[in-house]
């Protein structure tokens, strides 16, 4: 199944609980239509990974996820030979191997005989496919999510290039394996490292920023159906206000959702200042940010923070 138009994409994403902007829908549609990978960047928690998951749900495809980390290599991402299995088979087939070379008198001819059988041991049977190879060889089209690609090493990017431009993988012993179906590829990055231009060139680039208050309202309302309008309004106003400060890590949409969840769990109907401050840890994850926000909120109320001196000193 594929998307057929931008409007349909927008609608399908929404049906699957993802409120997207027209820009996001356009790019998701284009990525599907042109078979180009989609490189999604943005601050943590704006729904980059979620977008890929939603696309998989909307298209009814399997999601294959590759979580990148420092030091990830081919063996973890593409494929690995199953040495243990190969050894096991050699053991089990000892008799058979003897049978093959028994008739030979000299070593060279025996080697020749054996090497003719080599293919039996370097075949797809002994390959342990990892996410990338899985995505390519899958009989059904899939969604491939390469998560936090910026955490991987620059060498790993080079492996990705072949995959992303031609949808093929070269295995020296087997040759080139081409994709049966071109997967929908989404790469996410927190820009902790700048991706190489060659990788970027092959991708459609989508930057997802923190949502506008209107969109945030929509998203919260979607995730918490039945939430009271005034309560929702207050939540979004507070978060938008906090986001406008100069923080190390601004609260993102997933933190807004967490906060809403906490507030609902506390069964409150209004959000007074002291409650905001008490639950601030859900929104701000840095000590210095907590202080900044507290100062800001208290200053707005015309109060001053007793700890204030400590910060300016």
């Amino acid at each position, binding site marked *: 199944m594929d998307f057929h138009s*931008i409007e349909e994409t927008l609608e399908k994403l929404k049906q699957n609980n993802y409120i997207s902007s*027209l*820009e996001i829908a*356009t*790019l998701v*549609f*284009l990525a599907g*239509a*042109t078979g*180009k990978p989609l*490189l999604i*960047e*943005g601050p943590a928690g704006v729904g980059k990974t979620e977008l890929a998951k939603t696309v998989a749900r909307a298209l009814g495809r399997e999601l294959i996820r590759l979580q990148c980390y*420092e*030091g990830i290599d081919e063996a973890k991402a593409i494929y690995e030979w199953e*040495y*243990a299995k190969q*050894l096991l088979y050699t053991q089990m087939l000892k008799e058979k191997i003897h049978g093959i070379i028994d008739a030979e008198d000299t070593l060279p001819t025996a080697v020749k005989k054996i090497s003719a059988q080599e293919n039996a041991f370097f075949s797809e049977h002994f390959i342990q496919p990892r996410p990338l190879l899985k995505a390519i060889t899958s009989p059904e089209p899939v969604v491939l999510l390469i998560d936090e690609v910026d955490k991987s*090493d*620059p*060498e790993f990017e080079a492996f990705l290039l072949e995959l992303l431009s031609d949808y093929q993988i070269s295995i020296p012993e087997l040759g080139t394996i081409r994709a049966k179906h071109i997967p929908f590829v989404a790469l996410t990055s927190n*820009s902790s*490292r*700048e991706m190489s*231009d060659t990788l*970027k*060139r092959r*991708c*459609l*680039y*989508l*930057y997802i*920023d923190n949502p506008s208050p209107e969109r945030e309202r929509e998203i919260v309302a979607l995730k918490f159906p039945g939430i009271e309008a005034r309560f929702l309004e207050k939540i979004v106003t507070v978060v938008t206000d906090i986001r406008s400060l*100069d923080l*190390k890590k601004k609260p993102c949409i997933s933190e807004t959702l967490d906060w809403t969840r906490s507030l609902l769990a506390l069964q409150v109907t209004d959000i007074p200042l002291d409650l905001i401050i008490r639950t601030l840890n859900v929104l701000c994850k840095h000590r*210095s940010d907590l202080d900044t926000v507290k100062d800001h909120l208290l200053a707005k109320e015309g109060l001053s923070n007793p700890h204030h001196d400590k910060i300016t000193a």
Partner: protein
Amino acid sequence: MGMVTAIIQFAQICRAVGIPVSPVEVIDAVGQMECIDLSEEKQFKTVLKANFIKNHYDQDTFEGLYDFFFHRLPGMRRSKRTPAAREDLLNLIDDPGEGSSGREDFQALMDLLAHDPVSYLDLLLKMQSAELDIPEVDMSRFSASGEGTFSLASRNRMQARLREFLSKNFPSGDESLRFYLQEYLLDTLPEGAQKGDGDDSHPDLPAYFQPGVARPGPANLGEVPFQHLTAAEARAVHDIISRLAGKYKDRIIRRYSRSKKGAVDIQRTIRKSAQYEGMPMKLAWRRRLPQKPKIVALCDVSYSVWAAVPFMLNILYSLQDCFRQVKSFVFIARVAAVSDIFAHHETMAAIDQVMDSYQLQYPRSAVYGDEKDKYPGDQDPEISDYGTAFAQFMENFSEVLDHRTTLIILGDGRSNFLAPKADILGKIREKCRRVVWLNPEPEPLWGDGDSEMSAYRPYLQELRPCGNLRELAAFVSDLFSILLYSDVHK
């Protein structure tokens, strides 16, 4: 004008302002236009953006350029780009007050100019050459020697207009602007300029701006001493520094990941060999945690050195992932810790704030550039005093030093004939792993006059010049060999 031509020209403009748009990306964008509804401008814009902009910090630039190119540029509004449209553009420069929308367009140009004159002039240049190079339907009507190229008269007219425009709007002789203007004139209109003027010299140009002579353009940026950089060039250097830092970061991280492997771990190897009939098929290695060095930077921010400080801090903080910790201090005579500012702000903003909050006589322009250079002179009550600074550093901050710390001092060692107190530097030296000194002065001047370099030298593992980008880059490139491998003589 065809859409394809417009996209190609837009790509060229993007390149002119420094956004790298590759031909593949242009082809992709054009190809994807088939998939969308072209009557919806938003979709058109999204496709261009997704293909051309691959860095989120270029997004604002893109918005501005897009608006300028597709909405405000006179030629685009009439959906054609002809010599007449070019004429319009020139008229716009010539007489901003006229015409119904002239004011607005002029404002757009002025905004661009105020923001970055270089890119605007570059843009003009690229637009010009784009028109001449790209065959387009409208252009084919004109013969090559006709209006499709500039006539001699129009070249001279244009040259005169630009000169007038610039002298009217930028009366103060801004060097970088003039430089780019001249470059524009010389490159775009070579024949006209030469034939029109009768000889190939330009009276108001310094000798090295003449054609054929190597000019201190972007290619030579590495050699320009930091204190001689114009605001635009300083920005360019910062840009280069962040690119450099990215490159080194990759390299350094790779080095760390290689050095992660320690000796063979016998126990684990034996355990692993169990699945291969006791054959040690796979070796297990002891994991070794990389010993990331700690860095303490101590920067002289007095007038004689300030130009180099932001660049040094920029590169250190851009690389801070590669260190266990970066702490920084600035001094003239009194030492102040500034690490906190860096912990709370983005690097460039922090550098700005350091200079601001300590009210050092340091023009903001050297960081971001508003062109208003101030000269401190007698406003500056503090003169640099290395001896006192070292003593104070030792007394108040010596706890930041330990056996894994590398102290990087940035300064010219000119202590205004006050006591150098080199023995204190010796004590500092004993508390840390090594002391590296970066001196922005050219090497022959070290030890000359009030420079105390010769007194300090015995206590330094490394003493390097760091007066321009090339020297700074060379230092950083060696930094990790210094940090990881240089011997400790104690």
